[in-house]
C-alpha cells in the first residue's frame, strides 16, 4: 500500500471509516448549536402573535403583552433574588465547611450528601414545600407580622396557609444550594496550598487564612456559581407552581396571601387550559424567560472561562 503513496510526501490515506466518523462527530457537535438556535427560533416564531394580540386575549384584565408579562417577570426575579439571599451565604458556609473545616476523612462523604440534594426531583420539593415547610413556618410568619409588621416587607395580613413567596424562596434556596455548594467547593479546593500554608505559618487563624487566601482566590468562582444557581432558580417551575396561589400583581410583601407568581409557574398552571392566542402568549413569556436565563448563564460562563485562563490553579 505504501508504494502507491506519492514518493515525495507521506500522506495519510483517506479511510472511509475516518471520514464517516469525523463527519458524524462534527454533525453531532453542530447539532447542539442547531438545537439551541432552534429553541430560540421556534419560540420566537410562535410568540410573534402574542406581541400584537388583542386586549381580550389576555386573562386578568391586561391590555397588552408587556403589561401582562411584567408582573410575572417581577415575580420571577423577586423570588429568585430572595432565594439567592438565603442560598449564597449558606452555600459558601457549607462549601467552606466541607473544604476547610470538616475532618478530612468525612469531607468527601459530606460533599456527596449535599450533592444528593441535587438529585431530588423538583416535584418532590414542591410537595415538601406544601406539606411540611408551609405549615411549619406559618406560626413564624404570624409572629413576624405581629412583631415586625411595621417593616414594609413583613406587612400583614399574614397568610393562613404559609404558602407565600418567602416559602417559595426557601424551597428554591434549598434547590439551588447543591449547585452553588459544589462549584464553590471545587474553587475553594483549588486555592494553592502554598498560600494557605504561608498565611498559617505567619500566625493567621483559620478564618484569617480563609478570608485572606481562600476567599479572594475564589471570588469570581463564587460569583459565577451564584449566577448559575440564579439561572436555576429563575427557571424553576414545579416547586413555585405547587406552593404559590398566584395573583398577577407586583407586590413586595413576603408574608401575605397575595403573591406574585413566576413566568415558569404561570406557564405550567395555564398552559393546559390555554387555546388560540393564549398559547402564543404563554410561549412568548417562555421566550422572555429563556432570554433572561440565557443572559444570566452566558455572563456566568464568561466569568468562569475568563477566570480559567488567568487563574494560578492550572
Amino acid at each position, binding site marked *: 500500500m505504501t508504494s502507491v503513496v506519492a514518493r515525495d510526501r507521506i500522506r495519510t490515506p483517506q479511510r472511509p471509516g475516518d471520514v464517516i466518523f469525523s463527519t458524524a462527530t462534527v454533525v453531532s457537535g453542530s447539532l447542539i448549536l442547531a438545537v439551541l438556535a432552534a429553541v430560540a427560533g421556534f419560540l420566537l416564531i410562535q410568540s410573534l402573535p402574542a406581541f400584537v394580540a388583542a386586549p381580550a386575549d389576555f386573562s386578568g384584565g391586561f391590555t397588552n403583552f408587556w403589561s401582562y408579562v411584567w408582573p410575572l417577570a417581577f415575580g420571577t426575579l423577586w423570588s429568585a433574588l430572595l432565594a439567592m439571599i438565603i442560598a449564597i451565604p449558606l452555600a459558601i458556609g457549607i462549601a467552606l*465547611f466541607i473544604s476547610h473545616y470538616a475532618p478530612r476523612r468525612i469531607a468527601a462523604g459530606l460533599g456527596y450528601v449535599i450533592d444528593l440534594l441535587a438529585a431530588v426531583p423538583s416535584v418532590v420539593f414542591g410537595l415538601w414545600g406544601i406539606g411540611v415547610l408551609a405549615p411549619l413556618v406559618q406560626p413564624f410568619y404570624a409572629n413576624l407580622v405581629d412583631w415586625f409588621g411595621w417593616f414594609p416587607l413583613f406587612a400583614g395580613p399574614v397568610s393562613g396557609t404559609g404558602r407565600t413567596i418567602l416559602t417559595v424562596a426557601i424551597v428554591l434556596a434549598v434547590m439551588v444550594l447543591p449547585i452553588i455548594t459544589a462549584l464553590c467547593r471545587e474553587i475553594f479546593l483549588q486555592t494553592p496550598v502554598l498560600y494557605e500554608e504561608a498565611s498559617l505559618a505567619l500566625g493567621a487563624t483559620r478564618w484569617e487564612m480563609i478570608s485572606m487566601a481562600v476567599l479572594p482566590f475564589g471570588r469570581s468562582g463564587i460569583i459565577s456559581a451564584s449566577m448559575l444557581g440564579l439561572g436555576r432558580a429563575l427557571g424553576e417551575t414545579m416547586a413555585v407552581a405547587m406552593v404559590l396561589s398566584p395573583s398577577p400583581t407586583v407586590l413586595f410583601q413576603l408574608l401575605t396571601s397575595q403573591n406574585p407568581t413566576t413566568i415558569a409557574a404561570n406557564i405550567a398552571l395555564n398552559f393546559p387550559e390555554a387555546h388560540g392566542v393564549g398559547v402564543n402568549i404563554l410561549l412568548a413569556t417562555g421566550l422572555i424567560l429563556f432570554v433572561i436565563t440565557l443572559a444570566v448563564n452566558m455572563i456566568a460562563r464568561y466569568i468562569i472561562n475568563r477566570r480559567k485562563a488567568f487563574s494560578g490553579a492550572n
Partner: protein
Amino acid sequence: MSSTTATPTANMPQANAYAAGKLPKNSTLYVLLASWIVTGAVFLVLQLSGATSGFNIVGTVFFGTVLYCVAIYALSYAVEGVRRAKDRLVTALVTTAFVVALLPLISLVFTTVVNGLPGILTPTFFTESQRNVVGAGGGALHAIIGTLLITGVATLISVPIGLLAAIYLTEYGRGRLAHAITFFVDVMTGIPSIVAGLFAFAFFSLIFNDPGIRFGFGGAIALSVLMIPVVVRSSEEMLKLVPNELREAAYALGVPKWLTILKVVLPTSLAGIVTGIMISISRVIGETAPLLIISGFHGEYELRPVQPADDDPSGVRVHPVREPGHGHPGVPRPGVGRRTHARFDRHAP
C-alpha cells in the same frame, strides 16, 4: 453556661506556654451543650407558666445555637483575644450552615418515606393503572411505564449525539466551532426545563400544524434538550482523562483514528461515561414541567402506553374532560399514537 465560664483558667494547674491564653480543648462542646440547656430551661419555664403550649424543641435548638455563637465569641474574646474569637465565631457559623442545609434533606427523605411507603405497599401499586378507577384504588403502573418509556426514548436520542459531540470536542475539535460548542453546551445546561417543553411544543405544533398537540415523543425530545449537555459535559471530562500515550501507541501501530477512538479511547473511559449517562438520566427522569407542556396535563397524571391504533383501536381513548369547556379533550390521533410510545391523556376520575 455559668458552669463553664469558670473552667478556662481553673483547668490549668500551671502556666503552659502552648496552652496559656487559650480555651481548654473541649470548651466548644461544653458551651454548646450549656447554651442548649439554658434555652431549654427558658422554654421549659415558658411552658410551665403557660405562655406556650408544649415544649418548643425547634426554638430551643435555634435560640440555643444563637446563644452559643454569642457565648463562644464573648468567652473567646475575653480569654483569647479578638482574632481567635472571630475565628471561633466563623467556625460556629460555618458548621451551623452545614447542619441547617442537612435539615431539609433529612426532612424531605423522612416525609417522602413516611407518606409514600403505605402507597407503595398497596398490592396493586405496581400492577394496575388508574384506568376506570374512581376514588381510591388502582396503582401507578401507567406512570411508571410512561416515565420509563419517555426517559428511555430521550436516552436513546441524547446518548449518541452527546457522546459523538464529546468525542468531537476531545479528539477532533479545534478552533472556533469547538469553542462555540463548549461554551453553548455550558449555557444549555442552564436552560429552564419548562423552556425545553415549550420548544418541543412550538416545534411540533408548527410541523404538524396542530395547535393543541400533546404526545409522549415530544416529551422525549424536550428531555433530550435537557439531557444532551449533561451527557456531553460528563463524557468530555471522562475522555480527557484517557492518557495520550494510549492514543499515540495505537497510531504508532498504524491503527486509523476512528478505530483508535472506538477500540482504545472509548473502552478505557467506558466506566466514567456510563456513570455520566446515569447522572444525566437521573437529571431528567424526575422532570415534570416539560412533560406538562408537551405530553399533556390533567387533574391527575395518567400516563399510558398507546398501542398502535391498527392493532387495537381502543389503544387511543377519548375521555370525558373533567372541566368541560376547557383544554383539550383526549382526541384520538392515530397518526401520532403510532409514532409515540406513551402519552398523557385526560382522565376523568
